[in-house]
């Protein structure tokens, strides 16, 4: 499998086919004497900003922490062993509603979008 070509930047969906985001980062664990193991994917604005450089990454993390609290100061991670299918999208065996990934979308829904009539 070619990680950069086949995994990175692909669409991620949960088991209900809800679009969660793109694979913004890939985390590997370095092990003594054994090949590095892919343990998780990362997604969210912080992971993305880090790809543009260390500085934008720090700014975004600080901004996210300020807006969303300590929990939002790190990129969201989904464990690799939850992966179920790699096709047009990458499907993870999880329910996005039980994560913090959509916290900002929920905040938007509850405080902005949902308050506009007809939403």
């Amino acid at each position, binding site marked *: *499998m*070619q*990680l*950069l*070509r*086949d995994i*990175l930047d692909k669409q991620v969906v949960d088991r209900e086919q809800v679009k969660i985001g793109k694979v*913004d*980062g*890939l*985390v*590997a*664990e*370095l*092990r003594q004497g*054994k*090949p*590095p*193991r*892919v*343990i998780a994917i*990362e997604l969210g604005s912080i*992971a993305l900003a*880090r*790809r543009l450089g*260390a500085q934008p990454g720090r700014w975004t993390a600080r901004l996210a922490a300020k807006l969303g609290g300590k929990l939002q100061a790190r990129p969201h991670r989904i464990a*690799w*062993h939850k992966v179920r299918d790699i*096709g*047009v999208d990458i499907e993870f065996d999880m329910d996005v509603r039980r994560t913090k990934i959509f916290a900002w979308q929920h905040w938007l829904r509850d405080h902005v979008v949902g308050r506009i009539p007809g939403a």
Partner: protein
Amino acid sequence: MTNVNLEHLAGRRVCSESGKSIGYIEEIIAEQDGDDLVVTEFHIGIFAAFERLSASTIGTALLDFFRLRRRSGLYRIPWDKLDITDPAHPRLLCSDDELPGFEDIGNSRISPAPLHQRDS
């Protein structure tokens, strides 16, 4: 145990022991090992950006057109010969003498798994 972000390796320059640049990281190859997905190999070449696109014949055709294609410069470095503790500065762990052994001869690219066949 340290964790590193593999995406930061993409396009990084890799230097040989003697400090000579041998190319940029083009691809990270991983294989299933039991329940785990493990990194087995790093591809280092001269056209990092192009490599991501080169599944298309047009990419190589363009390279040929501009006479840029020198595929001899592709190295397949096994996972244990590249130190990626700091993904921004990957370091080769082999001597210059070993390097030619990792050179990719011929066009033995990993054949792509078609995505489009999934729809029916």
